[in-house]
C-alpha cells in the first residue's frame, strides 16, 4: 500500500508532469490530446479487473463486471478515436 508522504510525492510529481506535458501544445492538437488523455485514464481497466477478481457475492461481482465493461470501453474507444484523428494529420510534403 502506498501511503503518507510517499503517496503525496507521487501525486505531486505526476501532477507537474501532466501540467508540463500540456503546457506548450499547439491548439491544433488539443482535441486529439484530450482524446489521448481520455485513453490514458482507461488504465482504470486494471483496477476494475482486480476489483472484479476479488469481489464477493452477487452484487459486488455484478458491479465489478459492469465496471470492467465500462473501463474496457474507455480504453478501447479512447484508443480507436485518438488514432483515427491522428491518422489524418499530414504535411504538404507527405
Amino acid at each position, binding site marked *: 500500500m502506498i501511503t503518507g508522504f510517499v503517496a503525496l510525492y507521487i501525486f505531486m510529481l505526476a501532477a507537474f508532469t501532466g501540467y508540463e506535458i*500540456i503546457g506548450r501544445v499547439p491548439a491544433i492538437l488539443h482535441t486529439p490530446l484530450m482524446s489521448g488523455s481520455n485513453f490514458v485514464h482507461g488504465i482504470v481497466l*486494471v*483496477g476494475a479487473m482486480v476489483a*472484479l*477478481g476479488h469481489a464477493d457475492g452477487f452484487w459486488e461481482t455484478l458491479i*465489478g463486471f459492469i465496471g470492467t465493461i465500462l473501463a474496457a470501453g474507455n480504453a478501447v*474507444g479512447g484508443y480507436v478515436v485518438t488514432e483515427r484523428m491522428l491518422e489524418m494529420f499530414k504535411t504538404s510534403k507527405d
Partner: protein
Amino acid sequence: MNFWEFTVDASYFIAAVLFIVGLKRMGSPKTAKAGIKWAGIGMVLATVVTLWHPEMDAGFFRYILILLAIAIGGGGAYYTGMKVQMTGMPQMVALYNGMGGGAAAAIALVELYSHAAFQHGTTVLILAVVGALIGGVSFSGSLIAWAKLEGKMNKTIRLPGQHLINAGIALLTVVLGIWIIASSDGAPVVVTLFFIASLVFGVFLTNPIGGADMPVVISLYNALTGLAVAFEGFVLGNPAMIIAGTVVGAAGSLLTLLMANAMNRSISNVLFAGFGVDDGAQAEGPEGEMKSVEAFDAAASFAYADSLIIVPGYGLAVAQAQHKLWEFVQMLQKEHDVDVKFAIHPVAGRMPGHMNVLLAEAGVPYDLIYDLEEMNAEFPNTDAALVIGANDVVNPAARTDESSPIYGMPILDVDKAREVYVIKRGKGTGFSGVQNGLFFGDNTRMVFGDAKQVCTDLANGLKQL
C-alpha cells in the same frame, strides 16, 4: 516478492513511463501518431499482466467473467469508435470518458461494499469516497453531455431555482459521503444512496449547460475522471492508476482552462450560469444592408487575388463541405498561384482543435493551418478573406462593443482584409444570438447557400474563367 508480483509491478512501471512519453509525443504533430501507439502498448502490457495480479484470488469462472467483460466493453467501443464520423468525435470522447468515470465509481463501490476500503486508514477511505463521488458525477454528467451533442436532448431544461436544487443535491451527497467515512463500516444502504446522489448531481449539474459550452464541460469531466482513477489507484495500491490518473487530471485541468480562456469564459461561469440566460436584453445589433453576390463572382475575385485566408467554422463541417473546399483551394493554388492559408479560431468546431481534425480529414496539410495569433497580423495585408459557416468568432463587436455578450472574446480580425466573402446559410445569428456587424461591412459580400453547394459552385466558377 515472488516472480509474478515483481512482473506485475515492473510492468505497471513500464506502462506509466509509456503513458507519459506517449502523451508527450502527442503534443507535436510530427510525433503524435507514434505517441498514441506507445501509450497503447503500455495499456496492453498493463492489462495482460493484471491477469496474474496477486490480489486476483479468482477461479476459472471469474477469469471467464473478466475476459467476457473486456470483450463486451472493448468490442462495443471498437465498433462505435470505428464507425463514428469525425464531426461526432467530441461526443464520443464524452461517452468513453463517462465510461471511465463509471468504472472508477464501480471500483469504489466494490471496495466500499466489501469493506476493503475501511482497512487501510481514514485517508484511503476518504480517497475511496471522493473518487466514487467524482467518478459518479463524471459518469452521469458525461452521458448528458453526449446526449446533448448527439442531439438526443435538444431542450435545455432550467428549473426555477436550479442553483438551489443543485446546491441541495450537492449538500446531500457530501453529507452521505461524510456519513460513510465517519461510520467506519459503511452500511450498504448509505453507500448505495450516496452513489445514486452523486449520479443525480452529475445530471443536474450538466443539464442546464448549453451546447456551446459543452466542450469545456467534457474536458472538465475528462480531468475529473483522471482524478477519480488516481484516487481509486490509491485505494487499490495501484501505482499505474495513480500516475496515469494524476497526469490526466493535471493535463486535463490545464486543457480545460485553455479552452475556457479561448471562449472568454470562466469555469464557474460555464458551470453555474447558462449562456444567454443572464444577459438580459439583447444588445442592439448593427443595422444596414447585406450585399450578396453569386458564387461565380466570388470565385473570380479569389482567382485574381494574391493571397486568401479561409476561416472555417462549424457550419462547414455540418454541411460536410471540407472536401469540396479543399478541391477548390487546390485549384486556386495550382492554376491561379494564390497563396491560401487557413485561419482557425481556438473554438472553431465543437472543441479546440476539432476543426483541424475535420480539415485534416479532407486532406488539408497542417502546415497551411494557422491559429489566431499567427493570422491576425496578416489580415490587413491580405487581398481576400473567406468565412465559411463561422459567425461569432469573426464578430468585430467582440473588440468594440462593450455591451455585447461576446465582448472581450478573442476573434479573427477578418474585417481588416481588403475584401471579405462570407458563405452563410441564411441571415440568422450565431450561437450567442448576437448580430454580426461584419456582414454589413462595406468590404463584405455575402454568398448565401449551403456551404457544400457553394464550394462546388466556386470550383465550377473557376473552371469557367
